[in-house]
């Protein structure tokens, strides 16, 4: 081959002619894009909650599995961590449409460890080459996903509120600037990764199914020394499940109004939530906080009492079906954002509601 000089020889045709750039080696009908990835399908991390007999799948994982089928023509993969007890979830997982489930049963990874989980999922991604990796935007998912993306060197869109498929490409929609803007984002590499907010997709119908489960073996990854762990049991109810939210903010100056609000919430079948300031005053538990640093809620009706409506708070209620604002300040930003704004003192309205509802109930009896 030493006398092969720039394609001018005729001894072989492997290098092509310099004056004919389209000429290809025999048998090769077109120029293949060698950088084209062969990735296909969707991988979902199935997050589990609780322990032992009480083990269940996180709602957002079920929602993502339900949506994955519609986002891809390829296969739907699931990865789940845990021991024997996870087997009880198999029928439900397959019922949601998983073709192949990878079950990691390593003893080190039975408890959530972000470093080990990430390295393990990376090893799995390299094996199955999914086009898309979806993870629920829960407190664990939001720290696990970036770890995976970073180890793979791929892009990640956080906190998506919508996904649309364009072939195997996914356009990811996420709110920006406190929900005032919506951005459509594409990942430039496979696998494309996203964390998705709970409630973005509907809960799929629960039914049992069958499929292939594979025990995925993995060793390595950084270990982590967890000294102890305690379950935090605040009120069992979750404001994210409430259909009606009575939400209190800085305009609530009198602590007794929280009891009034609780009473109103009980009568209408709703729950009491709050903005950040009341959590910081220590009047309400953090689990009731709505907003960017709290929870994202999507009730039928959200009633904001004395909440000014900073962007951080509005970001938490963008999914609400109807927003009613009560604030004595006519210039409060919440008034631009509500379906119905009442310019009135929040406490007066709350007390009056409590009274009116009591009246209507006793009238029926």
């Amino acid at each position, binding site marked *: 081959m030493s006398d092969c000089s720039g394609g001018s020889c005729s001894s072989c045709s492997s290098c092509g002619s310099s004056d004919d750039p389209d000429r290809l080696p025999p048998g090769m009908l077109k120029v293949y894009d060698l950088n084209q990835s062969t990735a296909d399908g969707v991988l979902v991390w199935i997050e589990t*909650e609780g322990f032992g007999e009480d083990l269940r799948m996180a709602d957002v994982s079920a929602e993502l599995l339900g949506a994955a089928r519609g986002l891809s023509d390829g296969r739907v993969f699931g990865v789940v961590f845990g021991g024997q007890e996870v087997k009880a979830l198999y029928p439900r997982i397959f019922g949601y449409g998983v073709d192949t489930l990878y079950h990691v049963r390593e003893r080190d990874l039975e408890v959530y460890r*972000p*470093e080990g989980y990430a390295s393990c999922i990376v090893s799995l991604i390299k094996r199955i080459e999914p086009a898309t990796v979806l993870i629920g935007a829960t*407190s*664990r998912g939001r*720290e696990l996903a*970036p*770890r995976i*993306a*970073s*180890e793979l060197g791929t*892009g*990640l869109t*956080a906190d998506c509120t919508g996904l649309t498929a364009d072939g195997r490409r996914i*356009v990811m929609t996420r709110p*920006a600037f*406190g*929900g*005032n*803007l919506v*951005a459509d*984002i594409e*990942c*430039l590499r496979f696998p494309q990764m996203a964390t998705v907010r709970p409630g973005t997709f509907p809960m799929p119908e629960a039914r049992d199914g069958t499929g292939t489960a594979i025990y995925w073996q993995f060793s390595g990854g*950084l270990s982590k*020394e*967890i*000294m*102890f*762990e305690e379950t935090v049991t605040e009120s069992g109810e979750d404001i994210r499940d409430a259909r009606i939210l009575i939400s209190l903010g800085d305009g609530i100056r009198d602590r007794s109004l929280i009891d009034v609000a609780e009473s109103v919430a009980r009568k*209408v079948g709703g729950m009491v939530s709050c903005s950040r*300031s009341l959590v*910081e005053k220590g009047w309400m538990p953090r*689990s009731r906080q709505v907003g*960017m*640093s709290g929870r994202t809620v999507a009730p039928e*009706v959200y*009633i904001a009492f004395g909440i000014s409506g*900073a*962007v*951080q708070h509005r970001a938490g209620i963008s999914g609400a079906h*109807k927003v*009613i604002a*009560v604030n004595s300040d*006519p210039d409060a*930003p919440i008034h*631009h*954002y*509500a*379906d*119905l*704004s*009442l310019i*009135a*003192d929040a406490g*007066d*309205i709350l007390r*009056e*509601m409590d009274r*009116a509802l009591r009246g209507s109930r006793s009238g029926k009896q």
Partner: protein
Amino acid sequence: MRFAVAVKQVPDTMEMSVDENGSLVRAGVPSILNPYDEYALTRMLEMRSEGDEVIVFTMGPPQARDALVKCLELGADEAYLITDRAFAGADVWATARALTAFILKFVPDADLYVFGRQAIDGDTGQVPYEVAAQLGVQQFAYTEELTRDGDGFIAVQDYGDTRRTCRVPRGSVVSFGAVDPNGSLPTISGYLRARGMEVREVDRVAIGLGVYSVGLKGSMTKIVSTRTSSGSRRNRKVEINDPAVGAGFIVKELEAVR
């Protein structure tokens, strides 16, 4: 010990308002030190004992120097501004890559790399963990309490449904979960001390990254389009003089759902 704290300068979203069309008014909004980062910094300053050093660094435009000056006034010992025109438009990956390159070059020996939970403008909250993965160290998210323990530290993390206590080896990434709503004000002596200190500038070449590794070109995601979120709210405004009437309005709305 040496603590390296990553900070960001952000527009003060608390000061942002919406106009009649529901779009964001950004003009004239002041820039501040991200409150989550400020909280993380103050926690580290509280932990500092004799002989410890607190180093702050930020990636941003030249005017992000103001945020670093605030950190120095609060008591930080050293400040680095990672700035270069090529850094513009960086996504999470490109940001983490630049920060990691900086850390490896300038503060490779820090005992902790400390972050705030998220920036109030971007709100992705992912940079700390991407940096941790690139450094190959453990990450401690949503940290509530951090105490010294022998050669290392002990962190209490709040995952919402569980609270876990972990041993933190030196060189780990710690991100604090909370924020101080009132912020912190520098003392006069801190203010005077900071006047004699300089912010060191570091550019792309100094951290040893190529143009295709940083900024928009080094990003793994691309914003295809943005639009204002549909202002589908009806926006009916009523001034209420009699609370009973107002309560009636709401009760009527609620009856429609029940």
